[in-house]
């Protein structure tokens, strides 16, 4: 190449002869072909680490603690090496997809409940039925978590954590306004907020993270489920536009509280999920809907100015009596193409199963460290767990929320993410008064039906 180049350029007048030209042309033709070839090599490469190292990837929640756990694991299993890579949580799903598409996926990885079915269908993951210890784990965890980690009758995940959403409130602000108990109904919530507002404590007592994002808006699902509502029936048909769905009523409440009583912060639209935590800890809002484990941080004096003041209540409902909320599950899965299946399984069993003493070591670790909800029924009776629980949350509420929580059934649909995006868009329109609750429900129904037929 360079030789050719030099020869011709040093003698600008020198004509290129026919053979050189042909060679050049064939080189040009060969390039794209070479590309295809290279790509083909990439395709069958699989997710390999030739030296038996387990490639393990997860989103970057407390990666230091994760590494600490993995070091402990490799200490216990000196024959296994683990290469752990934390990935930015906002782009976790996208990046994993890119890696698997390129045949460069991990051997074991974190999986969100709402991508599980898609990734199974895409052929990224393998079922773990029959592998050592899996039955024990599935027998020991809550049924709803077990169901969430299964798809088409097969088990895919070992539990990382589970959690459900509840009403987060700042008890100090409430008491300043003379409020002693959290609201039971949405109307009561609105009235309490007006009271706080009128007391001059803050302009907008309620805040949500309502900027569009690639991950779900748990608070919205919690509000719908909290009133006993539903967005989809068991056949995954949209029901938000039917009488019993309560979706329109919840949306109407949101709009009312935003534009009539003006207690929901219109700036919610520019708050990303990560930004709601500092806002709550700084006491900028009196209420939000958040995960139970968030109180662990909110009440941690080292991190939060509002430590000790943050409490959790049940999600307020339309009628004030219904109890309900949404839960989610995070899990560890095995890649379909892993060449180190045994080691990888050992790793996720360590992280998501029992240790030698038949104790869910890692699950407890995460609860004790970060308050991440556990899936193991037995942990509720653990003394240390109960002690920790009492430090940041009312154990009764904690248990009750888990009790009434439901997972989103629609995450089994391959079009769930499209739907969630559409839902965020439509709810933003409700929150910015661009559409009516009725129209919003119609739009959501239409979107869901369109997606459904598109994926037929």
């Amino acid at each position, binding site marked *: 190449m360079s030789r050719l180049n030099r020869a011709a350029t040093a003698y600008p007048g020198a*004509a*290129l002869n026919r053979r050189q030209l042909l060679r050049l042309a064939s080189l040009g033709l060969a*390039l794209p072909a070479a590309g295809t070839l290279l790509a083909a090599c990439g395709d069958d490469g699989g997710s390999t680490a030739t030296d038996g190292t387990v490639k393990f990837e997860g989103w970057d929640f407390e990666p230091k603690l994760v590494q600490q756990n993995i070091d402990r694991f490799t200490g216990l299993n000196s024959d296994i090496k683990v290469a752990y890579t934390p990935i930015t949580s906002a782009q976790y799903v996208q990046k994993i997809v890119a890696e698997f598409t390129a045949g460069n996926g991990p051997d074991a990885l974190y999986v969100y409940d709402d991508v599980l*079915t898609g990734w199974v269908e895409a052929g990224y993951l393998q079922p773990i039925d029959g592998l050592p210890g899996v039955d024990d784990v599935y027998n020991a965890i809550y049924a709803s978590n077990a169901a969430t980690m299964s798809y088409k009758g097969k088990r895919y995940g070992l539990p990382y954590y589970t959690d459900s959403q509840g009403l987060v409130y700042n008890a100090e602000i409430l008491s300043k306004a003379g409020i002693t108990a959290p609201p039971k109904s949405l109307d009561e919530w609105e009235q309490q907020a007006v009271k706080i507002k009128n007391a001059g404590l803050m302009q907008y007592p309620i805040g949500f993270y309502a900027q569009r994002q690639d991950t779900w808006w748990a608070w919205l699902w919690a509000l719908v489920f909290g009133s006993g509502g539903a967005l989809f029936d068991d056949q995954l048909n949209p029901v938000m536009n039917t009488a019993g769905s309560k979706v329109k009523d919840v949306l109407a409440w949101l709009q009312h509280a935003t534009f009539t009583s003006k207690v929901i912060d219109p*700036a919610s639209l520019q708050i990303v999920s990560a930004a709601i935590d500092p806002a709550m800890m700084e006491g900028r809002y009196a209420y939000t809907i958040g995960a139970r484990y968030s109180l662990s941080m909110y009440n941690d004096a080292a991190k939060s100015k509002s430590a000790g003041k943050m409490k959790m209540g049940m999600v307020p409902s339309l009628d004030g009596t219904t109890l309900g909320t949404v839960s989610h599950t995070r899990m560890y899965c095995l890649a379909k193409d892993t060449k180190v299946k045994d080691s990888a399984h050992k790793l996720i069993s360590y992280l998501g199963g029992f240790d030698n003493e038949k104790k869910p070591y890692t699950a407890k670790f995460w609860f004790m460290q970060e308050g991440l909800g556990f899936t193991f029924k037995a942990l509720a009776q653990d003394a240390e767990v109960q002690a920790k629980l009492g430090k940041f949350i009312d154990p009764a509420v904690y248990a009750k929320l888990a009790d009434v929580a439901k997972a989103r059934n629609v995450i089994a649909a391959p079009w769930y993410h*499209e739907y969630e995006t559409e839902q965020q868009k439509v709810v933003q329109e409700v929150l910015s008064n661009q559409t009516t609750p009725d129209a919003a429900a119609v739009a959501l129904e239409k979107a869901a039906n369109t997606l459904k037929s598109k994926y037929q």
Partner: protein
Amino acid sequence: MATTTTTTATRIVAGGKQRGPRQLGDTARAYLLNAPALTVILLLVAYPIGYSFWVSLHRDNLKQPAAKRFIGLGNYTSLIHDDAFLKSLKVSALFVVVVLSLTVVLSLALALLLNESFMGRGVLRSLVLLPWAMPGVVNGLMWRTVFDAKTGALNGFLTSLGVIDSYQAWLSSSTGAFLLTALAQVWNTLPFAVIILLAGLAATPSELYDAAKVDRAGVFQRFRQVTLPWLLHPLLIVLILETMNSFRAFDTIYVLTGGGPGDATDTIALLDVRTVLTYTDFGLGSAYAWVITAITLVVSVGYVSLLYRKGSFEV
């Protein structure tokens, strides 16, 4: 006479024979000089580009590997009924228009200003380059803190000026979010446009201005008759590159609004990234990308033929 003509003719024919390889030599030499760049481009981009076009002719959603098949232009024809696509195309078109006109007006004004002599010109010329150094993601983060509804500089500034009574959630209204996102984008891309235009101005021979002054041309006349013709090529570069950029603007919008509120800032670029990476619909996402490419190309060619007389243009 007659004999001379004949010899001349034969000589020219003979010359022509020699001319053949000589011209080929020029062309061959030019392609040889292009070989390194072309090799890199072809090696690294030709395959991905071809691949993406091929994919765009397929129904190809990673979540439905079984449904994968060749559907020809199916993805493209489906766009006619694709509400999300059509809406985002509209948003993008508006975004491009707003960003482009703001960029052109501001950069032209700034370049003309920097071409004058005044105290502090050097300082201003350095300041112009500042936004260039800012990665789009950081730009988005910066403007997020500026527009923040609780602690933002914009609110503080306007409140202290007495323009507004209380802090506003600027990004919560569709119009506000759209315009402020466009502003953030303009701020980020302004330096490049200014540099290019400033260069064009520097190349304008000053004699022309003097001549125009002598001819009693007014400021605007001078601009139209003297400055603008010299700025045509720089303007073309600015228009084409900024159209490309704003059409594909992702980082800043993604960080600033994520596409909201509603779909007020949900540009085609955001939709495309989401379609490919979140919905894993590679087929449709690739089709979106090719529509973006085609539109950019058509618009670029449009600029070229608009700014140059037909036939004599050169990119």
